[in-house]
């Protein structure tokens, strides 16, 4: 989100500030450590995640614009740090961590953000947000309040896009095949945008769509919600 999709992060900052919150972004950290964690390299994952825990210590709430990174911090940090000196801190951070749409809807109780985005949109459920964190209704509740936006559900909304982190590079043929299923399902809806709360899924889907020469575009949920 920092190097490739800064607009998603910037949109999140704008939305949260507009709602009256003070946003802090710790500059010394860049990754939650999910790549080594998902490959089974827990020691390396801890060396990436350790500084993250320290950097997030003082925040009142941690808001993450990705279901996948959100699941890493909220669900897997306690497991990763179990039995280490940082175990209690990991539990504490996990308990105050929210995925962005979940935070808006279930913590702040906000769905109306005054957004205006006249377009046909289909929503992709990132697997980690959906199945690790149980987030399905929140992004849709937010999208329904966007003026001019038409939400068209695709048949394979909850099917994995095939990204899966290092899986996409280790098993490119399978990953691509899965992505193709996702893209054709999204194309069937006639939507102009695939929206999701996970930039990594969108990177994969966009990568395939661009290569296929499709005009269907991907957009992070926060970018849609920030449109006035």
């Amino acid at each position, binding site marked *: 989100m920092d190097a490739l999709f800064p*607009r998603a992060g910037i949109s999140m900052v704008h939305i949260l500030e507009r709602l009256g919150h003070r946003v802090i972004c710790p500059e010394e950290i860049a990754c939650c450590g999910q790549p080594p964690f998902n490959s*089974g390299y827990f020691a390396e994952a801890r060396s990436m995640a350790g500084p993250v825990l320290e950097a997030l210590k003082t925040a009142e709430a941690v808001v993450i614009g990705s279901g996948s990174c959100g699941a890493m911090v909220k669900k897997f940090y306690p497991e990763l740090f179990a039995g280490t000196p940082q175990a209690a801190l990991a539990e504490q951070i996990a308990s105050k961590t929210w995925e962005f749409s979940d935070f808006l809807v279930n913590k702040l109780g906000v769905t109306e953000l005054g957004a205006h985005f006249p377009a046909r949109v289909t929503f992709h459920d990132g*697997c980690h947000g959906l199945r*690790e964190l149980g987030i399905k209704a929140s992004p849709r509740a937010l999208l329904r309040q966007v003026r001019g936006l038409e939400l068209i559900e695709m048949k394979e909304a909850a099917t994995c896009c095939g990204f899966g982190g290092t*899986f996409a590079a280790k098993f490119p*043929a399978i990953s691509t095949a899965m992505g193709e299923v996702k893209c054709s399902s999204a194309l069937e809806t006639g939507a102009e945008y695939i929206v999701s709360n996970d930039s990594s899924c969108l990177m994969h889907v966009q990568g395939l769509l661009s290569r296929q020469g499709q005009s269907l575009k991907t957009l992070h949920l926060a970018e849609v919600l920030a449109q006035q």
Partner: protein
Amino acid sequence: MSTNATQFQAAAEKVTGDLRQRQFIRTALGNYEIARDLRKASFQSWESARQTAATTKWQAINHLDTHLEALVAKLEARGTKVHWASNGVQAREIILAIVRDKKARSIIKSKAMTSEEIHLNDALEKAGFDVVESDLGEFIVQLRGEAPYHIVFPSMHLTRGQIRELFQKELGSTSSDSPEELTMVARQVMRHKYITADIGFTGGNFAIAETGMISITENEGNARLTAALPKTMVTLLGIEKVLPKLSDLALFLPMLATAGAGQALTCYNTMYGGPRQPGEVDGPEEWHVILLDNHRTELLADAEQRDALHCIRCGACLNVCPIFRNVGGHTYGTTYSGPVGSVITPHLRGLQDWKHLSSASSLCGACTEACPVKIDLHHHLLQNRRNAATEKPAFFERLGYRLLAFIANDRVLWLVAKKIGRLTQPLQHFVKGTALDPARAWTKTRDLPPLAPVSFKEWWRNRS
């Protein structure tokens, strides 16, 4: 990379390139999903049914020793001969000894994945015996000399046309592709085999400790004939098949049918309690039950993944798995394919040789969501990855992650890395997708996103 991993990659590439097969599997499993959801809706609460099933299996597996003792005592009390097999070799030897002792020539089998697990057909054929599969799907793949494609639907990858051609070639049958006529062709062959077979071989879906019964579920009636007609019946099942009580079947039979095939109840569910008793007019004169361990007790010793022994082999996790749907069953090269196969095969056949299956997953969790007995499948894949990396780390992969950890959490190094990336990314355009492209695994089929001219952190710093 192990040979198994290389074979898996090659097979996956072949099948993912076969759009016809992928579409065929997707359509079949899409229809399954519709039927399954209809049946799920007839449960008062599918979620609480799953919880009850998981708890029942948890109790069964955690007291496996006492349940097995009770089961065996009841079975033996009615004259069943029970054998214990520690591994596949032992199981094959036990079965061959029975076959030889009975001076049998011909064996008819109903569907049993455990027999695939121990490669029984191969062993019997090599020893000169005639073996015929009586489940239609299994009969078809046996004629083709193939392993089952799916643990529940063995020949789901074949079209009617392919089956017609196979029957024409192997059985000299007619040129019809009507399912009814094709079934009649197979039936004619089989009816004769049922009557002449000396031994009927079956698997088992559940073993009831309370009553000493083996429950067999099937749609074709072939298992009933297999068990009823030959003089000797042989049943092979894994030790994890135990359920404590007969009444547990009231949940497990509809659950297996719903999760496995989208049926309210499978057509035939039969409980076998023993061989022919004095005064009875039918049934086998002798019944041998072989209880197979084959590394299951090692999985039992693994507190983290013990719940994998809950598996009732319904195939629900295969059906919903986006990897299975795109690579098909044969790609795995294992007896048990799909998510549950990827979880248990490293335990059954060696972690380092089969760890690639645990990596070949996006960890999407569709399997865990579908599992009727709530096995934590996708997290077990992650644990297998951890165990494999801890036991034998891949040098360059670990080095890569150490470098990433070093760079990502240092503000200046991260900034420098982004700047270098921005400078070099345009060059990547010239080699995109070629052998020279360092990102080829990605760029062969997908575009890479451009690095943003101003990163989030740069924006943040400029702003404050």
